[in-house]
């Protein structure tokens, strides 16, 4: 079936990308089906579970509700690009591994993108209550969230050590 397409020019994980996509496609569809960036997940398709969370110009957005056209000329960051400025592994990714904060892992990419935005905006170590607020839109069915909270707080402390500590 032929569908009217447009050329999307955007930056994905620091790389300029130009890709043809049908007008009605979401950002998630472009990422998953055109760019093979499968880290962002399709959990509910209705903006309720958070598994598709990516960043648009540094702001967390739900890629399943964001039209691809909306990313025209902007910067998209997905979980695959999270470690780019950190030698391949972002402290959050390391903390999630160390804390066993992922069980099935399906919600993890979306959670990491929400959490990274929180820590970057705060510019300091964060507390459990702020993490819970920032991750209110990300569902996890496996962990009971405790280890996720601990991992995000731990990563933020690694990134912003308290004065006087290494």
């Amino acid at each position, binding site marked *: *079936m032929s*569908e009217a397409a447009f050329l999307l020019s955007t930056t994905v994980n620091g790389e300029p990308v130009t890709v043809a996509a049908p007008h009605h496609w979401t950002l998630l569809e472009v990422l*998953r089906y055109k760019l*093979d*960036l*499968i*880290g*962002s*997940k*399709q*959990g*509910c*398709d*209705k903006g*309720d*579970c958070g*598994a598709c969370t990516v960043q648009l110009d540094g702001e967390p957005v739900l890629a399943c509700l964001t039209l691809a056209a909306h990313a025209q000329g902007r910067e998209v960051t*997905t*979980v*695959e690009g*999270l*470690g780019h400025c950190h030698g391949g*592994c972002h402290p*959050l*990714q*390391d903390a*999630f*591994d*160390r*804390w*066993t904060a*992922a*069980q*099935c*892992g*399906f*919600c*993890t*990419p979306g959670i*990491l993108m929400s959490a990274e935005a929180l820590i970057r905006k705060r510019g300091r170590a964060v507390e459990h209550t702020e*993490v*819970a*607020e920032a*991750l*209110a839109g*990300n*569902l*996890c*069915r*496996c*962990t*009971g*969230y*405790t*280890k*996720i*909270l601990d991992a995000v707080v731990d990563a933020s402390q690694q990134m912003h050590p308290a004065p006087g500590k290494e």
Partner: protein
Amino acid sequence: MTVKPSPSPLHQPGPHESGYRHASGEARYVDDLPMLPGTLVCTIFTSPIARGKISSLDVSRARTSPGVAAVLTAAELPGSNRIGPIFHDEPLLAEAQLDYVGQPIALVVGESYAACRAAAAQIEFECEAHKPILNIAEAIAAESFHGEPHTIARGDVEQALAGAAHVLEGQFESGAQDHFYLETQAALALPLEDGNFHVYASTQHPSEVQHMVAEILGIGQQRVVCEVPRMGGGFGGKESQATGVAVLAAVAAQTTGRPVKVWLNREQDMLITGNRHPFATRYRAGFDEDGRFVALDIEIFSDGGFSSDLSLPVLDRALFHLDNAYYLPNLRFVGRACKTNLASNTAFRGFGGPQGMLATEVILDRLSEQLGRDPADLRALNFYGDAPRNRTPYGQEVRDNRLPRVFSELMATSEYRARRDAIATFNRNSVWRKRGIGFAPVKFGISFTKSVLNQAGALVLVYTDGSVQLNHGGTEMGQGLHTKMLAVCCHELGVVPEQVRVMQTATDKVPNTSATAASSGSDLNGQAVRQACATIRERLRPVAATMLGCDGQQIVFTQGMVRGNGRQLPFSEVVGQAYLEQVSLSATGYYRTPGIHYDHASGQGEPFYYFAYGAAVCEVEVDGATGEHRLLRVDILHDVGTSLVPTIDIGQVEGGFVQGVGWLTCEQMVNDSKGRPLTLGPSTYKVPAIGDVPVDMHVKLLERAPQAGVIHGSKAVGEPPFMLAIGVVHALRHAIHGFGGRVVELAIPATPEAILRAVEHQKTGALPG
């Protein structure tokens, strides 16, 4: 907690086998697998009515819709149209009869989801609606059941009730629960040469997928390989109900000769697949003066939905757990599974156990509310004890009962008694907010209750560079089974995790496996892995003994090295020499659980290899004006024997508990009067979010508690912690009781509406509609 590097990963805290790949985003689930050119996708056309007949079905226009490769109905199926894990009583695609809203009728196969949806809209379909059976009460009235009643009985219930100091009678219900695995059902079928198929499926039961694909396609099982990359959650929802999705993909691949993916979006997933069984219970319970059970007469009904699926074993497990932790001298348990016009309800973490246990727990709450007794003491009074108070209703002896120890340790660490006193003070001084605290013990039987299923296999391959491929029959759904199997493998072969690759579960490596279910994954597969590794290690021993110049018995395999005679060699060198000496470097392992049996007719036997124990103390605060509540603090002490990997087990306890809290407090599936589900997404179906978890949560594993006769002293952990959440119900009832002092009438799930009604009842004595 800091994760320390360890010499062997066994018994040490450590990361998940896929932990870094989960966090980096490179972990691939079925829907993420690279698609070969020409791969087709699907949409399922489903029944709009709960019960009736298809009057006409014409898919010819849909077939000619742009981008459509095939439209399949029951008429086009090459072999059988019957699936279902036990009785094969479920049509893959509806024939003339329609049994529930969402029942698959036709599979539209095309180039894109948009093309499939457009074509599905062209299907010409008419049906004749009949009056459906939509709940347990309607099914009982219509005598609509799956199978026969199952009865377990002991002693003289009527005589005991007649002589009881206290008798309670009533009924009780619990509701459905959607699995809400974050990854919805998905399968990708590849047609291969010579009529063979490779099916990637998100399933807990690859062997069932293999066998059903073969049966429906009318080919031999050797022609089908089912492979499971990993699952994005299972929880029982992919034990039997992943099969239909995978079979549809395979049928479409056979018909079109192209790779076909069937992926359900969330709405279709919640519509088409079944849930945790709702249960209704009628009871009469008798107690002596002190509050000890003298008799329990219970009739339980489950809502099985339209097909039998796993409803009968779920019902069995509910009956096996009506006793929970308590000795019942006289009892009569009767269970029936109702047949209704709803999606077929299925396995879900606990498998009927939670529903059975909850009924008895609520009875004990009601007794304590009536007598004004501390419910924790009442529970401890009723614990299993020494003979004759150590026989379960089905005749199995409760050995190694750890609950008295769990009870005393948890009472102390949670400061239960001081907090209960503090709550009494708080509640006296607070009009609108009341607090409550509850203690919940859990005893959960471990083994598939169908004894034959308790078997497992493994295949271990060692390569000349000393690296290892580990295959076992269990599937990874996030629970950490691969992590545990990796730890067992490293321990047995004396290698380090970096040397071992845990392979994706596939039916061409280990045949005829049981589902990864019933909390049995580590127990069964762990023994098989150990045996396979030990076989290879013992073949290497004489080789190493010659190389190191000592007796074989002195050889130690550890951390990638082989030691003896004061020297050591890398494992890889010993393996290389073994190859030159023509020693086989692969082995299978096999295990079956010894000694378990159950006779359904007499209701007696020894269905469980052992019991897992745990307990929780939960504290809540209820807002009497809104019916909302907050979980203030949770203390859990859980028995996993000697943990294989403690980080994994603690994750199972925390996650299971929160999932149980969802079932009991916020997850409510609602259908309209015609049987159409109204809760088909997370906007209307509320699963716990990060803000719903306890403010203060303390989870501990019982220390110094090795279990005999199991893999490295460890006990099963997948399901038992789910039921610890019943402690929240106890705490809610305690808080609600504070509003008026009457016996609490709290519906489950205890949503804000249900709590508000219960609070109103406390104040007025009337139950608001």
